[in-house]
């Protein structure tokens, strides 16, 4: 922890902040803050809006006139292609949600345990073990040995475990978790130890409640990782019923692209699915649920229990 901060005297929290009349600095701060964030938000929103609008546009209109804020004609062609087999899409949503929930919870549990152990200053091998974990981000043996490990030795071909295991732990999440937990004062652990609490109990009863923002962050990252993962399904899943959403959509996209280039001579009665607007509809279908759920995650990003509150 920065030394400059430690010199400040610790004072119990009081709920007076908002009542104090705003000084000039705060006003300036607010003006800059609101303007800047509003600007960034718009820059982030506009392209996304163009994609949403694009997904409802006629394929030929997109090609000829490019992206538009408001399409001149509304077309549901892209969504019809996406939902051409609705039961499959719903099933895929189910698979994705199941894998995301199971994987995120298990991953969060393992990541937080590892992160906590590695953050403990009295854990002698914390640095060597951190290095052991970090090293995996530097070197990799490539796709083939990994694939052989997954299929031949672990027998995970066409198993849900093939979707859950690979994204479960990442060096990035663990090191990040370790750093969040490092900011919890050592003294808390020490006093609990004196009271005779074991390491696991300390982790469960003290550390976890104190790390809410960190857990929310890592949980979010894990969930996003699972939600967006199509690669593992692409590699290992061969049964259509087990396809997660992202892979199913990605499959629809690539089949459409193939049809588009390979629309042999027979196409008489069949119309080729759109490809441009399909890409956009797919982005909307994937992102939609997450955007709606995200506000629920946000409530964990508030100042939760502070150190003072626990002590007191």
């Amino acid at each position, binding site marked *: 922890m920065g030394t400059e901060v430690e010199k400040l005297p610790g004072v119990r929290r009081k709920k007076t902040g908002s009542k104090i009349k705003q000084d000039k600095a705060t006003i300036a701060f607010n003006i800059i803050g609101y303007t800047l964030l509003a600007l960034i938000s718009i820059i982030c929103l506009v392209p996304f809006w163009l994609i949403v609008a694009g997904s409802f546009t006629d394929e030929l209109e997109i090609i000829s006139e490019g992206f538009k804020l408001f399409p001149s004609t509304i077309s549901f062609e892209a969504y019809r292609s996406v939902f051409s087999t609705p039961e499959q899409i719903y099933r895929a949503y189910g698979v994705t949600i199941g894998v995301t929930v199971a994987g995120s919870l298990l991953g969060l549990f393992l990541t937080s345990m590892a992160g906590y152990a590695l953050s403990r200053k009295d854990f002698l091998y914390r640095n060597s073990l951190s290095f052991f974990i970090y090293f995996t981000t530097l070197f*990799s043996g490539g*796709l083939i040995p990994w694939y052989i490990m997954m299929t031949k030795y672990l027998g995970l071909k066409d198993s849900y475990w093939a979707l859950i295991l690979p994204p479960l732990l990442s060096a990035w999440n663990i090191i990040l978790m370790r750093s969040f937990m490092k900011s919890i004062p050592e003294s808390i652990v020490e006093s609990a130890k004196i009271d005779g609490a074991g390491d696991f109990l300390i982790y469960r009863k003290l550390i976890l409640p104190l790390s809410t923002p960190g857990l929310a962050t890592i949980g979010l990252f894990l969930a996003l990782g699972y939600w967006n993962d199509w690669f593992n399904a692409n590699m290992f899943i061969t049964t259509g019923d087990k396809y997660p959403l992202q892979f199913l959509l990605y499959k629809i996209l690539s089949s459409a692209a193939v049809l588009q280039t390979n629309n042999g001579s027979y196409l008489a009665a069949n119309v080729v699915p759109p490809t441009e607007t399909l890409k956009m509809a797919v982005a909307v279908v994937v992102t939609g649920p997450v955007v709606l759920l995200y506000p629920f995650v946000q409530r964990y990003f508030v100042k939760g229990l502070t150190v003072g509150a626990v002590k007191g």
Partner: protein
Amino acid sequence: MMRKVTKRLTLVLVMSLLISLLAACGGGNNNSAAPEKEKNNGNTAPVQGEAGPDTSKKVKLTWYLVGDAHKDQDKIVAEWNKMLEKDLNTTVDLKFTTWNDWLTKYNLLLTSGEKIDMIFASNWADFYKLAKQGAFKNLKDLLPTYAPVTWANVPKQDWDAVTVSDGIFAVPNTNPEYTPLGYVYREDWRKELNLPEFTDLNSIEAYMDAVKTQKKVTPINGAAYENVNDLFKFWTDTQMITGEIVGATSYATPRDIQIIPFTDQYEAWVKKMKEWEQKGFWNKNSLSSKQEAGDFIKTGQGAIYWRNPSSAGGFINEVQAKGLKMEIGFFPFTRFHNYVIPTLPIANGMAIPKSSDNAERSLMVLDKLRNDPAYYNLMTYGIEGTHWAKGDDDKTIVIPAPGVDLNVTPRYDIASWGWRVEENIKKEKGGWEGLDKLKEEFKPISKPDILGQIYLDYDPVKTELAAVNQVFEQYGKPLMLGLTADVDASLKVYRDKLKAAGVEKLLAYVQGEANKYFDEKGIQ
């Protein structure tokens, strides 16, 4: 992470490959077979002298195809297995790679040694390289016993085409096709503007010029590179062997192999292309555009798009199905020099990976699939009465079957290319009739592919090849589209960079291998 890099690399690689192969280049710039060294011997035991293969043991086979499974695939395979079980005491578990990254997965399946008894194989899926590296079983001794009908009805030269180092590593399909490139274009505009029909470069230039100046439309809108590069190859009769760099200067002079960008012909061409670019025949951002030129024809903002006859048919059908008010014509580049080269036999085929324990049984199933119409029709066209119905005669079919709604039962599609046999192929009613006319046009002017089967694995020059290819991508492509400000200067840079990358060593290697092949086959 390396895995990610490789993954992405292969992904894009595959996409670009896929696009080019689906357009099925007729130019014959693919690596091909010539025996090099003995590698696969003694991994198959000839079982001859028996009365007929023993099928007393029940066997379950795993087959892999590229592409996606159809909605009703399970039903069809179940039907198929009923027949197979009765006839051969065998069932097949049919799996698909899906189109996503199919080549990555295809290579993984082979490299990881997964148990597979039959897999699609093709020169555009690296058949020759894989065969040489030992990915497939040698079928030479098995074929006469376990696939006797196929062994007899596949022409000798087709077997030769899949022979690598004296072993036969695939069963090629028996369906010679013509897939030369050409332009689909706005025929109605040509008539309206009173322009001559396409016959040569001048007529094409006149057309583009008129479209640009009178219709105010960029003739090749969107991605232009392939449109221009293929025109170059067909117009100059350049027979590329290695990428777009090393090739023979004409079909008649196969031994005259040169570094194409070093030729005067090339220099004259890129100068012409600079003129075309300045006339606005394509856009300045053409190299970054991901939109196919054909998409702009559909919107009325383009006039020309490269296609092969079959995909031209698809394009024309689509324009009609969408009710777009335009007339589309097709001009095959073969008319420049009046000959056409058919696709290689191993453009599509089936092979047995080394990991298979049941090669014999798998071949027996393939023999049935290729030659027994009951098996062939079911797997290739689906269930009769649901996915298709008999047409006017035995050779034609109707899709969809009467009373079937395509929205409920989408048209059946399967990567059947690997086992297609010409005499079993049925023609669908309602296709583009231009296709048959072209077939008639091509048959009498067909010439064998003499360059396509020179087998090159580039092992001694792989470093140079990689460097040269990158130089081509960086300098060759902009030059072909006349995008650089000073053609003379950038041509010099291009040539210098190619030299520095070791293009001459590459040339020597290609010439050496080609001459060996020509000597062997007696080609002058």
